[in-house]
């Protein structure tokens, strides 16, 4: 294990080291002090443990690597990630997993507004609650919420799935509750299994997705917007 200490190294030094490391390396980052853009653009299967809270865009555009934050994360966690796994033990701020194409994000605490905005294939699991406008314009992938969801959940959603165990304050435009089929129960089980989450009751989850009524413009729908 390599230790990278923010008290001794700059952000550039640390990111350069991570991006240029050998496959299967293991790093522990100490004293992150809420730094922004930490562990971004990694393109290899490595493991990174960050001891402490981080700022904006931690693990942005991640590919292949497993990144754990022992603390909380600022806005844009794992934005546009392509693959790999991110686990934050605490809470995360706005736009977690924004535009993520693949891989998975597990949030131990709560996620703020717009969690999973424009997601394009990533799986996001939030053990707590999510804020308003989560899964806004979500295109593909899965958002699993163990707690409650804020207002306008899934507004203008495309083909992503949302699973909620708690209460939903309100649904956004063109988002509807859908039947939880065997196929979707299996999908939920796979997502949680891949993230090593086993403490759940599948019967408590409801599924939400697109009514697909706004996919092609129709003037009679104008009042919905």
């Amino acid at each position: 294990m390599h230790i990278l200490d923010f008290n001794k190294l700059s952000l550039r030094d640390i990111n350069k080291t991570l991006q240029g490391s050998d496959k299967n390396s293991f790093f522990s980052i100490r004293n992150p002090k809420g730094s922004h853009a930490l562990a971004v653009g990694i393109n290899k299967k490595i493991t990174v443990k960050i001891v402490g809270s981080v700022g904006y865009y931690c693990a942005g555009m991640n590919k292949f690597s497993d990144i754990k934050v022992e603390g909380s994360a600022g806005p844009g966690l794992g934005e546009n990630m392509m693959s790999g796994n991110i686990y934050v033990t605490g809470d995360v701020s706005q736009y977690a997993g924004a535009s993520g194409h693949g891989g998975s994000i597990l949030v131990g605490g709560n996620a703020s507004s717009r969690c999973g905005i424009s997601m394009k294939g990533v799986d996001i699991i939030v053990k707590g609650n999510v804020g308003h406008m989560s899964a806004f314009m979500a295109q593909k992938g899965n958002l699993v919420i163990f707690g409650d969801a804020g207002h306008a959940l899934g507004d203008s959603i495309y083909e992503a799935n949302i699973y909620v165990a708690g209460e939903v304050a309100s649904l956004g435009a063109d988002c509807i509750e859908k039947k939880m089929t065997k196929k979707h129960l299996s999908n939920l089980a796979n997502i949680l299994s891949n993230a090593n989450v086993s403490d759940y009751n599948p019967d408590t989850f409801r599924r939400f997705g697109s009514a697909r009524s706004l996919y092609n413009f129709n003037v009679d729908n104008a009042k919905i917007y």
Partner: protein
Amino acid sequence: MKKKSTTEPRTSHTFDAYTNSEIRRAAETGIYDIRGGGSKRSLPNFDDLLFLGASISRYPLEGYRESCNTKVILGDRFSSNPLNLEIPITIAGMSFGALSAQAKEALGRGASLVGTSTTTGDGGMTKEERGHSKQLVYQLLPSRYGMNPDDLRKADAIEIVVGQGAKPGGGGMLLGQKINDRVAEMRTLPKGIDQRSPCRHPDWTGPDDMEIKILELREITGWKVPIFVKVAGSRPYYDVALAAKSGADVVVVDGMQGGTAATQEVFIENVGIPTLACVRPAVRALQELGLHRKVQLIISGGIRNGADVAKALALGADAVSIGSAALIALGDNDPRYQKDYEKLGTTAGSFDDWHEGLDPAGITTQDKKLAKRLDPKLGGRRLANYLNVMTMEAQTIARACGKNDLRNLEPEDLCALTVESAAMAGVPLAGTNWIPGT
């Protein structure tokens, strides 16, 4: 029987023929007009400015003997690998999806022949444009369609698109008929549905966030490539100052004549300000920050010829960018397709329903048969010719003003034909020392 009137029928300036036809169209269809391109209304523009050639008080350079530099470096503020362009005219962002793969290839070929850059668009980077563009700017757009870190690292520069001159504050639109399998896959959306690109980025709001976003992009790309920020012409003084403060290497300001693949006509014609009005406030913002020429300024929106290039540079820009004009060079709205345009209810020169995918010139389409009408090699050659002509025209003017570098042109070389253009450009009305507003 009433006697026939001897006076001429009087048409209304308020309710002119086009306005009336739009009212009828709205009444019939119940939907606003969507079209491509930029503003078509008469606006103060670069034609309203004239150069004051050298005479006794200034001496000119020999037109065919003395050199006039056209090279420009874009993005050397923070990046280690700035763009080195042979000419100060770049190709603006236009997406694969809005344009055919052949058109993207032609743009890359033409730009590369003359040593300038092209720019991707919504939907990501295609192998055709990367393969044929020696210098390629990769756009980071609000939709993030097709955005991926591998392409980001292949780019020669990154352009964060905050806005577009045709629609400041608005998002994009690609109607279902242009969404074939390849476009759908690149954008991670089902085939055939309308794709509405958002107007805001999904993971930041405001200049403080943008500063951190720029930091992230630099950390991902190792501080190698320049970061451009593109804003629509609406509040250029503030937007350029904020973009520069946020850490941009290059700021692109796109006036309302700048084209779009598709948006509402009411948006194109009523939101934003003319390109001419954008330049001086943008330059002043950089000058006041001590960043003029350190953060390069690119002006776009209705640039058509070398005179426009020279005027934009004389007002303080470092380069210009063209989109609509490049498409015309490839063959867009060419009179040889007049019959086909008539079948679509329009004429060569007026066609702007780019979003419908029926472009007879094969440029703004995903229809395979139509797209084949454009030969990428020939199109590239035509674009290169056009870019060369623009450059030579700008050099001709610069030499006449006694300048051995296009960027040595200055406001003092200009006068204005109208009070409005004098005020916008901050140069005197022709034959006077009067600059309105000063």
